[in-house]
């Protein structure tokens, strides 16, 4: 047993002038920690959090706990998928079925076993309505698709008279817009079955939620690193130093990758 894995620590946290004694069991993979890490992270967060973010964090932690016992045996890929899946479902559940994309995510997740368990776990209070909604989604989508096919077959194409420059430019731009709308539809979950207006609304909502998700995940990553780094001080330094270095390195790597992503976005 490596020292940094399977750590049992007493961590003293001060939160609003109270001192909370927490028993934290840390593995080297922080996101799949025990439930107390959630309070830990929440308590360490000084910045004011919106309702959405707090809800998301709570649900995400709940979802991660579902994987609780299996975390040791999971490979890296599985772990990443577990984290991402629970994060996505938690995000979708914050919207509680009011938006199409959240319904789509939940419906898709319910298709396989892992997702089903998570969905049931995270959405148990409101699950009835949501389950109905997600099952109804498939039918709804089929219906929409059929309608669109019908519409396209029935619509009469206008004859293009001698193309003036303006008209030509307009048609080109229309084509571009259509193509990009298609791309957007592929990006937003459940977007293929919506018309333009609701697509944009969905995108709006989806973007806001994604932003919140990224923010929460990044902050909890930072906090968890902090915690582990702090805990590592209590560790047996002789044995744990290698892993600890790797650990720090990975976190830095992720941080840099995030920074570079940001750079790219700034270009475009």
């Amino acid at each position, binding site marked *: 047993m490596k020292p940094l894995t399977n750590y049992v620590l007493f961590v003293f946290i001060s939160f609003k002038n109270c001192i909370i004694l927490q028993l934290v069991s840390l593995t*080297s*993979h*922080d*996101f*799949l920690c025990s439930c107390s890490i959630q309070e830990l992270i929440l308590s360490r967060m000084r*910045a*004011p959090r*919106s309702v*959405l*973010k707090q809800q998301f964090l709570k649900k995400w932690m709940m979802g991660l706990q579902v994987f609780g016992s299996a975390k040791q045996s999971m*490979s*890296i*890929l599985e*772990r*990443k998928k577990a*984290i*991402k899946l629970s*994060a996505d479902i938690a995000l979708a559940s914050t919207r509680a079925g009011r938006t*199409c994309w959240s319904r789509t995510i939940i419906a898709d997740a319910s298709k396989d076993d892992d997702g089903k368990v998570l969905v049931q776990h995270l959405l148990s209070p409101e699950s009835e309505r949501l389950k109905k909604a997600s099952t109804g989604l498939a039918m709804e989508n089929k219906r929409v698709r059929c309608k669109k096919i019908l519409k396209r077959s029935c619509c009469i194409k206008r004859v293009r008279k001698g193309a003036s420059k303006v008209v030509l430019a307009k048609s080109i*731009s229309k084509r571009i*817009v259509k193509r*990009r709308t298609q791309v*957007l539809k592929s*990006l937003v979950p459940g977007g293929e079955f919506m018309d*333009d*207006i*609701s697509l*944009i*609304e969905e*995108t*709006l909502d*989806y*973007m*806001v*939620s*994604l*932003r*919140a*998700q*990224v*923010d929460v*995940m990044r902050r909890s*990553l930072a906090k*968890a690193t902090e915690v582990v780094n702090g805990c590592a001080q209590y560790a047996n330094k002789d044995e744990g130093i290698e*892993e600890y270095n*790797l650990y720090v*390195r*990975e976190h*830095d*790597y*992720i941080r*840099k990758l995030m920074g*570079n*992503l940001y*750079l*790219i*976005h*700034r*270009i*475009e």
Partner: protein
Amino acid sequence: MQPCSREMQGINSLLNPSSQIPLQDLQNQQIQNSHFDPNSSSNDDFLEQMLSAIPPSCSWPDLKSPWDLAMPINSNGNGNSAAKPRDLPDETDNTNVGFHNNFDESVILASKLRQHQISGGGNGAAAAAAKMMLHPQFLMASARGGLPQNDVIDGSSFKGGDGSIQELFNGFGAGSMNGTGQASSQSMQHFNHPQGGAMPAQNFGAQVAATTAVMNQPQPSGSNGGAPAQPKQRVRARRGQATDPHSIAERLRRERIAERMKALQELVPNANKTDKASMLDEIIDYVKFLQLQVKVLSMSRLGGGAAAVAPLVADMSSEAGGDCIQAGAKGGSLARPSNGSQTARTNDSSLTVTEHQVAKLMEEDMGSAMQYLQGKGLCLMPISLATAISTATCHSRSPVINNNHHPLLQPNGEGPTSPSMSVLTVQSATMGNVGGDGGAAKDAASVSKP
């Protein structure tokens, strides 16, 4: 989308031949409102007048118009912007009075969207702002009873407007001015005064649905040669008359899309474009970026070092698909920041050696290749990422990263030895460290810090 469908129902009812009625109401209210101006200066009088002006059985879209028309009058009556805080309770009352049951859903949705937008802005005041946004919902809920609202709540909740909310609303207000409704444009102008940001945000939420109706109404008025018709509108109307419902519906649809694009513009950074196509482009890029961020963040806490990273990133880049080009990796400069300006490459021969070495290693085992590179202080990344970063650091960051400018030029200068290879030095601007260099290999990409 239930709120949308309800809006559509309301508007469809408007589009029916019975559109004469709302038009007349509009005109009536216009006439009545013109009387308001000299008379009403106090809040209560105004409220009473508004209450009397609205026919009790008026349908939802009609109720919007007196509210919208009343706005400029309200503001005019109270004059300067210093009086704005006093206006707010007025407008709230009108809001309460003006709202109808059908309206709730869409406005609640819109206001919640705004709320989450605001919270998504991550401001310090975001939580407070979110609470402010919640209040309109309560207001609207109690408006069903038709009671004039508790000014106390409103007064307290509209203090300390958030800057982002104002911008949000201003942007949206400017966007809504594209509509043909003169009244709505007037009201928007008044709302653009940066005062009590949350209040405009609330009205904004209402106006999301309201402007659609308001904008709709002047169109039938235009097509019928109604009161505000100018010669230009009349010409447009004649053409529109031929295919009346279609053109109106299309115009409406276009305007709604424009509204929402404006709202999106607030969210997406770098969005100073007004063109639909380029806005869509920005939106797509941003969504992709956010999704990528989520993916990256979810692969944290990797145990076992670089070897474990490889399958993870291979998975990621295989999902990313076409972006990554198959290429051999080429060694890059080690480029420690402490070297300062001296970032000249080691001689090429050693680089090619490294490159071959890495290529060989990659064939057998990704993990060992990664470790080898890591030992040299290099990293792998998808070509698209690498080129993007290089261009960014070349163009935009060059004043900041002077000393490291050199190696960036070099890879571009020397060019790929084979079409599939590229070299890049990646720098993390925040850290000032050189993270490594780039190259994509067999659709696996990873970055490790030296």
